[in-house]
C-alpha cells in the first residue's frame, strides 16, 4: 500500500514521516519515532496503556490512525517534565505515593492524569477515579494512584498560588 506523508509535532519536535494510512498512531510513535513510553495492553480500545495527549485531548493512540493526527500536536510521557526540566509533580507524586508497581500502565496513566489536572486542577478523589477510568491497572488497585494525583494537584496549586 502506498505511503502518505504526515506532519505533526511530537513532544515539541516537528516530525515528518511517510506512513501507511492504516498505521495506528501507537505504532507510529513506538516503531517509527522510537517513543516506547506509551504501551499496548489490548486491541479493543479498553485499557488506556496507549494514552497520549493529542491537540489538548487524552486519546487512546491505538484507536487513531497516524494520518488522522496529521497537523496535530502530540504529547507522550517522554514529553512530560517539570517546569525546571526535572520531574513533573505527577512523576514525583507517583514515586512518593507508590502509584506504580510493574510500570506498564504508568506512562498512559501519568499522561492521562496530566490532562485531567488541566481539566480540573483540584479534583476530588471521586473525580480522579472517574477521570482515570479509561486507564486500567492490575498491580496497584488505583488507591495510591489517586493519592499520587492528589499529591500533584496540591503541589501544582501551591506553586500556582505562590506565583500569583
Amino acid at each position, binding site marked *: 500500500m502506498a505511503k502518505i506523508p504526515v506532519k505533526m509535532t511530537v513532544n515539541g519536535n516537528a516530525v515528518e514521516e511517510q506512513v501507511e*494510512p492504516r498505521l495506528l498512531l501507537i505504532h507510529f510513535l513506538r516503531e517509527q519515532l522510537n517513543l516506547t513510553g506509551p504501551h499496548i495492553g489490548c486491541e479493543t480500545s479498553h485499557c488506556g496503556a496507549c494514552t497520549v495527549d493529542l491537540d489538548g485531548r*487524552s486519546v487512546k493512540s491505538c484507536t487513531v490512525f497516524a494520518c488522522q493526527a496529521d497537523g496535530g500536536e502530540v504529547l507522550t510521557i517522554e514529553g512530560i517534565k517539570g517546569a525546571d526540566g526535572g520531574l513533573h509533580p505527577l512523576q514525583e507524586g507517583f514515586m512518593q505515593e507508590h502509584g506504580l508497581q510493574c510500570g506498564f500502565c504508568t506512562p498512559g496513566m501519568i499522561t492521562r492524569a496530566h490532562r485531567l489536572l488541566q481539566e480540573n486542577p483540584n479534583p476530588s478523589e471521586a473525580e480522579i477515579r472517574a477521570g482515570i477510568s479509561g486507564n486500567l491497572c492490575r498491580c496497584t488497585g488505583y488507591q495510591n494512584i489517586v493519592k499520587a494525583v492528589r499529591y500533584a494537584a496540591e503541589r501544582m496549586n501551591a506553586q500556582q498560588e505562590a506565583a500569583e
Partner: protein
Amino acid sequence: MIPGPFEYHRPGSVDEVIALLGEFGDDGRVIAGGHSLIPMMKLRLAVPDHVIDLRDVGGLDGISEDGGTIVIGAMVTQAEVLASDLLASKCPILAEAAALIADPQVRYLGTVGGNVANGDPGNDMPALMQCLDAAYVLKGPKGEREVAARGFYEAAYFTARGDDELLTSVRIPTPAAGHGSAYEKLKRKTGDYATAAAAAVLSMERGTCTAAAIALTNVADTPLYAEAAGAALVGSTLDEAAVAAAVEAAKAITAPASDLRGPAEYRTYVAGVMVRRAIERAEARATG
C-alpha cells in the same frame, strides 16, 4: 490488532464526502471519532477499501438553538456535549447520558453523529434521541432530508440512512421548560454497553404528568421508543399504578439478547427497574 489496508481521504466539504460515498459505495466508510469503526477494523470485522475522514469537513460542528430546536452537529464530541452550557440548561439528559458512555479518552473523540448513525444497539444516544423525538438530517446526492429518530432504526446496524448519505446534524425540539429527565443505565463496568438502560423525559403541572416519553437502550436489536409506557404516565400523578403500568408496557416490548451481561429475562427485568428509577428521578427534577 492490525487493520486491513485502505486508501485515506480527507475531504473538505459535505459535498465532497457525498461524492466519495457515491464513488466507493460499500467499499467506503466515513470516520468521525473512529471509536466504533477503528476497533472493528482492528479485528478485521470491517475492511473498507476507503476511509473518508470527516475531520476537515465544514458545517458538522457546533451546538446551537434555533427557534425552539436544538441543533447538534454530527461531529460534536461527547466531551463537547458534557461541556455545553446550552445543553446543561436546556436538555440535561444528553450530558447525563454522555457521562455514562465509555471513558474520558473515548469521549474526547467519540461523536454524537457516530453514536446515532451506525445502528449499534449498544449505543446510548439513539434511545435518548427517540425519547426527545429528535430528527436526523441526512444529506445525499439528491439533497437533504430529515428522518425521525423514532423511525430511523430498522435492525442491528441497519438504519434508514442510504449508503450514499451522510448524517450531518441532529435536531432536537427543545424540551419544555421545567421538564424533568433522567437516564438510568445498569452496566457491568465503566466502558460497557448497558445491561439495560432507560431514558425518561416528562413534564409535570401541579402534580399531574402532562407529557412523558420513555425509551430503552440495548434490550433489543434497535433502541426502543416505549410509546405505550409514556402514554401510561400522561394524565396521572405518577402514582404507583401508573408507574407500574409504564414499567410493564416498557418490558413488554423488550427482546434482549442473552449474553454475559445476563439471561434475557434478567435484562428485561432490569429494563423495568431502570424505567422505574428514570421516572422517579425525572419526576424529582421536574418543576411544575
